[in-house]
């Protein structure tokens, strides 16, 4: 996930400038942009990861009355680290620490980054945060539309890391009954990635018929992430943008196997251009 650059109108900047912006500490919006830039451009500079680790430590409890979202820089640093494997593997311990931060937005960014880095060390901590199930981790935070835990990101990280273990499956499975379809989609995707069992693919295909476009879009992305090829026809037929169908079908080509074969998948992609 990328955030739009706040000052894109000033034109492109160099890697040195991005590092400088992150290094200084007076202007947080500059740091925010610098962190975003390093991830977006997949910087290989030796100072990128250490500076992002430092930025990740600049966090404090949320203070909604404050006006400025202090953790924005830390969140962008976490997101950037997720894109900088293998160098960012050095930052796994920092991201694991952030997984226990009181700010759930920051926990979400850390979970996604750990998933992208395929950090096996994160499996147990993530499972701990999800263990209370849909009624605990998946319950609403009082007075907000947010859940107690960033369940979607935590579930998807487990699938991305790909550590197959019965205990992990047991933690994920109850979430296919969560009241929110986006959480059900994320759980089914992870179970499909980890177990390969068709029932989870079928659950995602059912969500392609959901009445809300947002849900159909999520199911498309999840089928693509799992590369489940039997979904070809339902993907072709669901009501959503061709751009998203193409991304999903790319996932079926690159991550899937078996029937339908590659030529059938490519023929469908050709039609959607």
């Amino acid at each position, binding site marked *: 996930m990328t955030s739009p650059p706040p000052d894109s109108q000033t034109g492109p900047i160099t890697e040195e400038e991005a590092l400088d912006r992150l290094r200084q500490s007076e202007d947080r919006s500059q740091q925010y942009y610098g962190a975003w830039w390093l991830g977006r451009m997949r910087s290989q500079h030796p100072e990128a990861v250490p500076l992002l680790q430092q930025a990740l430590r600049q966090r404090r409890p949320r203070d909604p009355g404050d006006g400025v979202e202090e953790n924005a820089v830390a969140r962008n640093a976490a997101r950037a680290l997720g894109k900088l494997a293998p160098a960012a593997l050095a930052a796994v311990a920092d991201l694991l620490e952030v997984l226990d931060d009181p700010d759930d937005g920051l926990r979400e960014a850390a979970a996604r980054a750990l998933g992208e880095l395929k950090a096996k060390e994160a499996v147990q901590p993530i499972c701990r945060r999800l263990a209370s199930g849909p009624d605990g981790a998946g319950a609403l935070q009082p007075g907000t539309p947010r859940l107690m835990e960033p369940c979607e990101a935590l579930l998807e990280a487990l699938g991305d890391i790909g550590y197959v273990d019965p205990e992990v499956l047991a933690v994920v499975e109850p979430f296919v009954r969560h009241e929110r379809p986006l959480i059900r989609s994320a759980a089914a995707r992870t179970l499909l990635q980890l177990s390969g069992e068709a029932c989870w693919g079928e659950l995602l295909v059912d969500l392609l018929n959901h009445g809300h476009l947002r849900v159909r879009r999520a199911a498309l992305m999840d089928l693509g992430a799992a590369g489940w090829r039997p979904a070809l026809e339902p993907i072709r037929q669901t009501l959503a*943008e*061709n*751009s998203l169908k*193409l*991304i999903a079908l*790319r996932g079926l*080509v*690159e991550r899937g196997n078996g029937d339908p074969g*590659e*030529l059938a998948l*490519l023929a469908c*992609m*050709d039609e959607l*251009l």
Partner: protein
Amino acid sequence: MVPTSHEALVENLRNATTAEGLLAATAALAQAPIAATAPVLVEVLGYNNPGAAVTAVDGLIRLGTAAVPALLELDPQNYGARAWAVRALAGIGDVRGLELLVEALGTDVAASVRRAAARGLGNLALGRLDPAEQTSVQERCLEALLAATSDGEWVVRYAVAVGLEGLARGLRPQDRAMEQLRHGLVALCEAADDNPPVVCLRAKVALSRLDPP
């Protein structure tokens, strides 16, 4: 009562007051369009209603060459409508759309528009042109497609592979353009950090179809 005459369908569309109403009226008109309704369908492209625009594009493609004059008359400043028009022209394959497709592939900011243009440049019907004109159009298409083999978006490069494959169908093996076209596909086959396997695969399939066994 469901109106059946085209006048009544156009009237319905003009009187639509909701997004759903517009979509339904466009769908009715796009189902069996006649040339006289092309300007009305083109108008819908500018209404900022994606569902209706998709339906109007389908209707315009169904209409084929008869829709082209209305599409080419679109105001270039009307960016949103132009993006949809590119898709319609790509689907119709009328050579009068050439300049608009070339420009869209080279300069449009939206990857979805560039990808449609790339497909369209491989899909132009050249049968009615004399040989010299055919060659000149093919060269324009090839030049635009080759330039787009380095597009930053994978989906556009994928569409370029599809476009090159389509363009090759109109070339003879001994044409000089064929060799350049082949180089373009070979470049798309190359594995690189930012070139996903699906693009390489599509380009390989296109190459294999250039040399049927």
